[in-house]
């Protein structure tokens, strides 16, 4: 421990509940206040996680479950840390309100509560990730939930908050993927496999063509980059039903990136990856080798853009 700098580190908590979290929040703020009133500069230690390995030889012992570095926010060392700390405390106070009133809010809602302080949505996103690492919990434990984006259809039935959602009754209609996985239970299915598609257009084409009438499967889409509820729901389906999972993405870098997000997790939320990744997922297509196999005409092939 370095002289003149106090480090805040909380013990590992297996299943943080709202009350435990509220206690942690109060404890954290109390120790900050103690520091300031004793004339010490407050500082916080945050661990950094990674979902990829940068060792080219591949023989290493790194894992996404253990932190690979520590990030320190301390006011006397970095002047902009004061602003970062202010933002962190503001979000923490909002999260406290949410937990106390048992309400949910999105990251965007939080941004709007003080746009002058946060300036940009990305700042709020980083602060929330920092708080999750600090309190060793997942984002949904803070009652921060996104506006759901994912869709599911096919041979599936489950209960959401006690209400039965019977996708099998209308196998070609899309249903929104529940935002709070905690509300989902009783998954029942006789499907033979799960198909994940990148784009909403493809999903709608399958629905319009009544794909699930002829094929006993469950179709899921995240409509582009999948959000957290979609990834958690997919993981939950795989765990409960033990079905093979196939992924259909565009044959371009974005498609490949989306496939890796489903399969390995995102770098932004590396600390949560083990709850959301589906390593069993198989890459069905579109593979570059399919161009020849299916005789795709040349005009269907587009050039890679600079971004790609």
């Amino acid at each position: 421990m370095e002289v003149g700098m106090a480090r805040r580190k909380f013990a590992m908590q297996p299943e943080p509940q709202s009350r435990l979290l509220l206690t942690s929040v109060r404890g954290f703020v109390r120790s900050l206040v103690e520091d300031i009133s004793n004339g010490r500069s407050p500082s916080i230690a945050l661990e950094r996680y990674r979902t990829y390995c940068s060792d080219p030889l591949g023989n290493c012992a790194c894992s996404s479950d253990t932190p690979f570095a520590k990030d320190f926010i301390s006011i006397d060392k970095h002047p902009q840390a004061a602003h970062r700390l202010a933002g962190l405390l503001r979000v923490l106070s909002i999260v406290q309100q949410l937990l106390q009133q048992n309400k949910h809010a999105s990251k965007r809602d939080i941004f709007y509560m003080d746009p002058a302080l946060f300036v940009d949505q990305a700042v709020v996103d980083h602060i929330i990730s920092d708080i999750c690492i600090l309190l060793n919990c997942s984002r949904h434990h803070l009652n921060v939930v996104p506006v759901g984006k994912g869709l599911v259809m096919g041979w599936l039935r489950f209960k959401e908050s006690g209400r039965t959602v019977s996708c099998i009754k209308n196998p070609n209609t899309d249903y929104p993927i529940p935002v709070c996985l905690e509300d989902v239970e009783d998954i029942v299915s006789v499907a033979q496999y799960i198909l994940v598609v990148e784009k909403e257009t493809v999903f709608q084409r399958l629905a319009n063509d009544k794909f699930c009438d002829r094929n006993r499967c469950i179709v899921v889409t995240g409509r582009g980059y999948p959000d957290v509820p979609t990834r958690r729901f997919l993981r939950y389906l795989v765990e409960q039903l033990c079905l093979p999972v196939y992924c259909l993405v565009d044959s371009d870098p974005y498609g490949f990136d989306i496939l890796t997000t489903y399969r390995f997790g995102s770098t932004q939320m590396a600390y949560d990856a083990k709850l959301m990744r589906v390593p069993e997922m198989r890459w069905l297509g579109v593979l570059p080798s399919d161009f020849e196999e299916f005789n795709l005409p040349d005009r269907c092939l587009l050039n890679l853009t600079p971004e790609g």
Partner: protein
Amino acid sequence: MEETQSDSDLIRSTLFYSDQRLCSADILSPAQARARIEVAVLNFLKTLSSPNPAVSDLHLINRRSENCGLRRGLLSDVSSVFLSHSFCRRSLMRANDAKAFVRVWKVMEMCFMILGEDKLVTQRELFYRLLSDSPQYFNSQEQVNSTVQDVVSLLRCTRHSLGLMASSRGTIIGRLILHDPGEESLDCTILGSAGHAISGDFNLLKNLAFQSDARYIIVVEKDAVFQRLSEDRLFNQLPSILITAKGYPDLATRFLLHRLSETFPSITIFALVDWNPAGLAILCTYKFGSISMGLESYRYACNVKWLGLREGDLHLIPESAFLEFKPRDHQISKSLLSSTFLPDSYKMELQTMVEAGRRAEIEALYCHGFDFLGKYIAGKIVQADYI
């Protein structure tokens, strides 16, 4: 278009003045729509193979503000924006128009094929199909959308008749039971806070039956606010239905809202939008329709009242939540101020917005607590504080 003396006499003497000048898109079956496309092709070939062969121009209804008018309802208080009989041309002979000309024919060809397969596609899928079919003519979704509107103006039929499904962006929740013939009825009070997704299929929406004891419908601009109000179950505290199109309203959401307002004439419809020109533009689209889709949009205009955010509410918003006007805000406010349909009370509010050069979002009210929004809405309705 110069009006002669006899023209203006005729106009003054007609009882249904605006209806005479209104240009409308017909709702057609797939066979009828295909027939119209065939007629367009045959006319083109006829001119091409005539003794004086020529490539005929395409005459499209002009979708600009100079060709639009405001139609006030005779028996109802609904006003709508309509397009009149002024034309613009697409010509192969003009250098920078040639590609647009070809695009119209390409889209007609693709729609002809889709209608023949008896399918419905979204505009997004149409874009992908056109991109792989003729990449040298199409390079963006906006281009495809505006070409589709060209085809609508040419053939005078609705977009849905061409086999194009509306985007299903809207959601609804609240004191409403939806009966889809052949399916089970859906009680919208027991849904999760995301609500029920509104279908993009007009045939389905047309056949829905409703049951409701709501007194109000609240149209919400943004999905996040909709979900906040759903989670708080506002529709149980205030007997109401909540509906959102998650931004600029799509035709399917407007169609459903229109059907609800016709089925339940005593329900009052309120809009909850941000304090910025875009929010007002969204309210006006629900209320009057839009010019860009003027041929079919007038059908779905509803008498929507502006509940909030308005000038009188600004004292509830903290200073830090106000943001500066962006160039886009100035653009939208200019176009709104110069439009024919904006009522005076709305104009005054917009002018206040522009003079201060500031805007605020509904979420700024959250600083008073997450449940403040529900109380704010109920208070305004009870005090009849809407225009």
